Every structure is written in structure tokens, then in C-alpha cells.
């Protein structure tokens, strides 16, 4: 689409058409998008397709590329951005959605298990306000398979179910997955060696911190400085709403199990575990773990922590209340978990997320501390038992952690400082000037190339299971028509998006909701959708769509 004067005026008019009336992020779309349940088949020209995404730089670029390629189907595409708050609030909070909404998801550890993307995104249960199935994909057969795989403890059987679910999504096309953007960080290899590339966390993110446990200091600088975008908001592990804050606190309060560099489940604070049947799991606590104040970590602490979660129903740990019934102490080192219903993701997503809180401290919280719920208790000097111990937190500046040498896998560095550097420009400059040793967030190809020019710096790009996707509004014509959605899939040039927006550092999603890099769970024979405008137009033609003299797409005549 050439940037003709008319299109600019449209953009100007579109922008001016919105906010002048009563402010409201997607107010304009309300009028057009009333969620009419039974819509009789529309006729006449296909209306302009509305694409909404947050004003994150990558999505601004993706929307520009999509507007260019989708218009080749003979439709006008209007891309609009809102602030993160207004888009999340409207789309996820209120389920007010235009034709297509683009959002991206990080490579958090508990999204490696297939259950997250399948159930949270597409199960009918999650098609209610606040749920992530804001596209309202309702497919009973799919729900059945999704619930079945949750209960299936045998990995082989569960994988068959997961593959089946992926095939159903590939035919229904409720979602376009553009790419699984690599997690790319640079580090100063003159100062530290032994970084560990990990699925989703790359070498520097806090999610699964193998690098920080295995890296060796090569110079006198034994404390690693990490430049990161965001900052933590609390030191209370029961109150961490956001993934970076949650995973950083897990450095001090290690989870029972963790993920290996390639995503496989590994023992961590637990030595071993055994799933008797779908609903009871026995776990053996690792011996010799000691809290920072010298008190031993015991099964009593474990039971206390889970009972505490069941009692207070912490929002951030809602998954525990969903699935756990009770915890019982079997022996000085063994506990038994009884579940409400069989759950295959209990070990990776619950034992992989929960931790042990020292009973002798938390039992008298809130107590006299005058706080409504333990989640509001600041926990200013956290007593943990992990490989790192808390030293100092200056809001807006940094968090300083010190190594706990008697942890079973004692890190070789003396400490880590998470610097709050809110702009990429300063982060790159700090790496180049040596003010920072490693990046804690992800950068893209061009920035990696810039840092690689420095002999002492090296950028490492690791595949991730976090996806950039766009969701169709299943109840709104024309995207309610499967043929139209398939045509849109054909008209999406994933290769160009990866090259232009992420300068090559991303995997082509091959239209699957599970990243090919997640080898065990990704279904290899999901039919890929080849980028071809001609094929897209053929799909539309076969479905009865026509084009008028001016090349504008018309609905099929009924």
C-alpha cells in the first residue's frame, strides 16, 4: 500500500475521529463492536478491519507490516495503539475487543508446560471477563481434550492429547502466532565465564537463573552487575503479582522443582518426588538446607507454608487454591500433597512455583503488624534459604543480593546487583562502558550486533516459548468466518516480521501455540500456513467472497 496522501489523511481522520468525544480507550469500537450473539450473515463490502495492540515499539512495527500485507486482500486495515493499561483493561478486563488484538507473552517458566497456553487461552471456562480467552473461542471438543490432558499423568498419553489439541487450533485458527522471539542478552566475557543458555530465560533473565549459579568471575570484580528494564515492587513472596518480581524472589526462596536449560523438570529444593496417582504426590525435601538466620528448613515449614496459602488465598498464588486439597507430613523429610482433582501440571507449575516460608517468622504475621493480610506485610529483610541472600533495595535504583555459600549448589560469584535502567540506550551504553556486566532483559538483533562489535562483549540468542500473537474476535464478522481467518493467515508474512522487527532473532511459529523449541510438547505435523497473497485470495474466492470494480472485498452473497 503506497503511502498516498489519502491514506495519511485517513490516519489523521481516524486519530481525530476517536478521543474528541468522551475519553475511553476503545470507546469508538464499542459502537461498532456490540457483541451481537446471533448475527445474520452480513452482505455488501467488508468493513475496515480494526487491529488493536499496546503501543509497545515492536507491536507498532508489526501493525504497520500487517496493515501493508492484509490490505492486499482488498480490505482497509486500521491499526490503533493504546497504552498498555487501556488495552489490557478493555480487552482482558472487559472483553471489549475489535476484530483483531495483538499482544505478546514472556517466556515465564510455568508457560513451558502446554497446559498454560492451551487452557488459559482457549478453554471456554476462560471466556469470562478477566480470562485470557478474550477471543471467545468456544469449542466443547477442545475443552474436553484440554481437561483430559490436564489429568493425564502419563507423559506419552498426555502428549498425544496435546498434539490433538494443537491440530484442532490449527484448523480453527482462533489465533495467529507470528513468532517465538528469542531471548537475547549480552554479557562481558572478559569478566565472567560459564553463562548457561536456558529456554525462555536466555543467559541473563531472572526466570531460570542457571547462569548466575554457574558463572565464574575472571577478574577481581566478583559481584555481577545486571542492567534490567523493570524493578521489583515487593520483597514479600506471597504478594508478587508480576513474573520478574516473583522469579527474583525465588532466588532467595528456591522452588521445589525447576527447569533445566532445555526445559526439562529438575529437582531443586526437593530431592525427588513421586506421583502415586493423579491426585496424590509425595515429595522428599532436600537435606541440609538452612535459613539465613541459621534455623534448619524442615517439613513443618513446608506444611505451614501450604496451609498458610490455603488459609489466606493469596491472589498471586491462586493456582495453589485451585488444585491443592491438603498437605501431610510423612517423615522428617517427606510430605504428601492431596489434590482436588488429578493435575499433570501440579509438579512443574505448582511445585515449580511454590517455596518454603520460615514458620518461626511468618506465623506471627499479620499478628500485631497492623497489616490487613500477610500479602501487605513488607518483609523488609527477607529470611530465605536460597543460593542468594538479600542485602539492599533502593527503589528505582537497584536490588543487591549476596551469595549464600552453604547452598547445595553455591554460586561462584560473590553477589548480584539488579540495576534499574529504564531505557535501552543507557543499557547498551553501560555494557559498552563496563558499568554493567550482563543484560537482564531481551534485546534484538541490531542491538546484539552493536554489542558484538566490542571484543569483550558477546550477545547470546536463545529460543524462547514466549510468543507474539494476534487473537481473532470469534463473534465478529468477517473474522468470525473460518475462511476469512485462514486467508488472513496466508496474508501474514511471518518471515518479514522476524527479519524487520526482530532482525532475525526469532523462530517461525509455524502456526502452533507451542514453540518448536519445546521439543517434547510441540506437534511437528501441524500444517504450516504458507505466506501467499494469491492463496489467501483463492481461499476467499472459494468461500464465495468477491471483489467489486475498485478491488474492495465483498461478503459472499447468500
Amino acid at each position, binding site marked *: 500500500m503506497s503511502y498516498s496522501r489519502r491514506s495519511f489523511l485517513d490516519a489523521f481522520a481516524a486519530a481525530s475521529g476517536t478521543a474528541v468525544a468522551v*475519553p475511553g480507550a476503545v470507546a469508538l469500537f464499542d459502537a461498532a463492536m456490540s457483541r451481537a450473539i446471533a448475527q445474520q450473515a452480513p452482505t455488501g463490502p467488508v468493513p475496515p478491519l480494526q487491529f488493536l495492540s499496546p*503501543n509497545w*515499539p515492536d507491536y507498532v512495527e508489526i501493525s504497520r*507490516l500487517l496493515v501493508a500485507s492484509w490490505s492486499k486482500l482488498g480490505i482497509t486495515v486500521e491499526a490503533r495503539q493504546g497504552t498498555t493499561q487501556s488495552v489490557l483493561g478493555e480487552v482482558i478486563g472487559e472483553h471489549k475487543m475489535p476484530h483483531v488484538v495483538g499482544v505478546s507473552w514472556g517466556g515465564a517458566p510455568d508457560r513451558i508446560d502446554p497446559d498454560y497456553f492451551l487452557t488459559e487461552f482457549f478453554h471456554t471456562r476462560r471466556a469470562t471477563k478477566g480470562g485470557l480467552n478474550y477471543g471467545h473461542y468456544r469449542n466443547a471438543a477442545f475443552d474436553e481434550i484440554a481437561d483430559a490432558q490436564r489429568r493425564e499423568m502419563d507423559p506419552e498419553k498426555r502428549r498425544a492429547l496435546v498434539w490433538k489439541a494443537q491440530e484442532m487450533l490449527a484448523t480453527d485458527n482462533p489465533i495467529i502466532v507470528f513468532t517465538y522471539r528469542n531471548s537475547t542478552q549480552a554479557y562481558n566475557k572478559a569478566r565472567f565465564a560459564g553463562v548457561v543458555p536456558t529456554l525462555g530465560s536466555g543467559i541473563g533473565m531472572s526466570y531460570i537463573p542457571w547462569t548466575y549459579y554457574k558463572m565464574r568471575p575472571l577478574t577481581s570484580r566478583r559481584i555481577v552487575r545486571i542492567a534490567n528494564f523493570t524493578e521489583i515492587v515487593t520483597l514479600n513472596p506471597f504478594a508478587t503479582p508480576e513474573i520478574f518480581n516473583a522469579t527474583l524472589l525465588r532466588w532467595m526462596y528456591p522452588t521445589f522443582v525447576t527447569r533445566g536449560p532445555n526445559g526439562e523438570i529438575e529437582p531443586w529444593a526437593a530431592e525427588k518426588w513421586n506421583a502415586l496417582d493423579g491426585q496424590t504426590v509425595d515429595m522428599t525435601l532436600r537435606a541440609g538446607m538452612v535459613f539465613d538466620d541459621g534455623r534448619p528448613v524442615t517439613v513443618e515449614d513446608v506444611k505451614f507454608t501450604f496451609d498458610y496459602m490455603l488459609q489466606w488465598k493469596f491472589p498471586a498464588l491462586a493456582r495453589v487454591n485451585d488444585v491443592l486439597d491438603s498437605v501431610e507430613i510423612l517423615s522428617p523429610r517427606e510430605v504428601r500433597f492431596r489434590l482436588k482433582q488429578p493435575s499433570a501440571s501440579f509438579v512443574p507449575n505448582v511445585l515449580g512455583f511454590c517455596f518454603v516460608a520460615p514458620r518461626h517468622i511468618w506465623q506471627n504475621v499479620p499478628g500485631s503488624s497492623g497489616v490487613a493480610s500477610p500479602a501487605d506485610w513488607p518483609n523488609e529483610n527477607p529470611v530465605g534459604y536460597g543460593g542468594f541472600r538479600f542485602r539492599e533495595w533502593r527503589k528505582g535504583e537497584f536490588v543487591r543480593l549476596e551469595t549464600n555459600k552453604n547452598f547445595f549448589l553455591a554460586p561462584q560469584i560473590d553477589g548480584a546487583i539488579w540495576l534499574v535502567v529504564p531505557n*535501552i540506550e543507557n543499557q547498551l551504553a553501560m555494557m559498552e562502558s563496563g558499568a554493567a556486566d550482563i543484560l537482564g532483559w531481551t534485546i534484538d538483533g541490531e542491538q546484539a550486533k552493536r554489542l558484538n562489535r566490542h571484543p569483550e562483549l558477546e550477545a547470546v540468542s536463545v529460543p524462547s516459548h514466549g510468543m507474539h500473537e494476534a487473537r481473532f474476535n470469534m463473534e465478529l464478522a468477517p473474522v468470525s468466518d473460518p475462511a476469512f481467518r485462514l486467508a488472513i493467515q496466508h496474508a501474514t508474512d511471518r518471515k518479514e516480521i522476524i527479519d524487520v522487527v526482530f*532482525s532475525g532473532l526469532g523462530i517461525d511459529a509455524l502456526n502452533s501455540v507451542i514453540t518448536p523449541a519445546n521439543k517434547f510438547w510441540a506437534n511437528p505435523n501441524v500444517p504450516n500456513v504458507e505466506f501467499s497473497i494469491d492463496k489467501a485470495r483463492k481461499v476467499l474466492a472459494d468461500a464465495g467472497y468477491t471483489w467489486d470494480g475498485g478491488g474492495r472485498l465483498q461478503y459472499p452473497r447468500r
Partner: protein
Amino acid sequence: MTERGLLRFGTPSGRIGLAMFAAFCLVALAAPWLLPYDPLAINYVGERQLARLRPPGGAFLLGTNYYGRDILSQILIGSRVSIGVGLLSALIIVFIGTNVGLVAGYYRGRIDALLMRLTDIAFGIPFFPFAVLLVALLKPSIWNIIITISCLLWRSVARVTRAQVLSLRERAFVRAARVAGASDLRIMYVHIFPNILPMVLLYVAIGIAYAVLSEASLSFLGFGDPQVVSWGSMLYDAYTTGSISRAWWWTLPPGLCITLFVISVFLIARDWELIANPRLAT
């Protein structure tokens, strides 16, 4: 430089300012036809090689940005938004401010107290933080920026206009008009307004300058409309892709354009200031 001369020719610096201002406006109007490339198109070099962050020269006069878009084209099309927002906001600012000042200065009494209390409150609000609040809470769009700028910056025009109107209304020619039975409106707009015109035009110029700077700053913080290219949004893109220090050809031009345009407006404003306050001409 007699006052009459000033009115017809303006000072040399004023003329330079006017020339620069006219040049910018012409470019803004003619932008779509001057574009060497589509400002939003991704350009390639050779077969599939993305023309990313190419320095000026060769096919791209001012080089390309991080996403392979031509910077010269973006500067040209960006001028429309930056100047458009500037002019529009300035006109709204001066329209509100002048009228508030006129009414308050002319009617005095309760209306004056009320309007001036409103002005004091507007003065109490730190401008840019409030603009950030408003734009961040609304939706990022040029219109929100214009609304935000206009709903605060009218305050200085109102206060100055009121002061002038207070003194003008006592003058003989105003009393004469009133005796001759002219209606309040006629007196205000036919008799008083022409006398405060130089000062009003001075504030139009200052208004444009502040509006352009505010739009650029708000866009730089990411509150501009991403679909619309403006000088501020270009700097936002440069900043969020971490190319500031390397791609000088991407950072300098937008900043220079903003500065030069604002300079041209301030030069014009100085001429209006001389007319409004001849004593400064010594």
C-alpha cells in the same frame, strides 16, 4: 526603526524568522508530493537485505532508521503533525485566553474574580506533568495532545489580555463608543480587540513554540499516536531502539527541525513584541 516601518518590514531578524516559518509551512503543505519514499515503507537494499540504519548518502539522502524507513521522508511528513499541532494548539490557546481576558477585563466585578480565580488555578498546575497525566490516561493521539496543551496554556494569554483590557477600557475612545450607544460586544471586539492584536499575535507565536515543544516531548515519552509520524515520535523510535548514540543522522534532524521551527517562531514573536512594546526598540 519607527513603528510604522516596523509594521511594514519588521526587523531583519524578524524577516529571517518569517522566511524560515514560511519555508517550514510550505514544506509541510507540499510534503506528500515531495516524499522520495513512503515514510512508513520498509526499504530494502539489493535483494532481501533490509536497509537498516544506513548512514546518509546514496539512495537515502538522510539515511534510514532502525526499521529501514527513509528518514528524509519521515522528516517531511512529520513536519505536518508537529507544525499542525503547534498552529492548532496556539490558535485554541489564544482564542480561549483572549476571550477570557477580554470578558474578565471588560466586565470586571464577579465575572472577573471568577475567571481570574480559574486562571490562578490553571497557573497552579505544573504544565507538563499535568499534560503527561492527561495524555497517558486518555489514549495516545494527536488530538489528545492538542486538547492537553490547549486546556492549560491559555492561562498566560488570559492574564496579560485582562491587564491590557483593564487599562484600555478606561481610555477615551472606549468611553466615547459606549456613549455612542455601542453594545458591549461591539466595544470589546471592534474597539478594544484591535488594540491588543499585536500582543495577541505575540502570544500566538509563543503559543506555537510551546505547543510544538510540548508535542515533541509528549511524543518522545511515547504518548504520541504511533500510527502518525511526527518529529517527536521519530526521536521516540530512535530512543526505544537504542540507536541514539550510533545513528546521529536519525537523532539530529528531528531535533534540529523542532529547534529551527521554534526559533523562527520566536524571531517573529520578537517583532510583535517590539510593536506591542515600542520602548524596547531603543
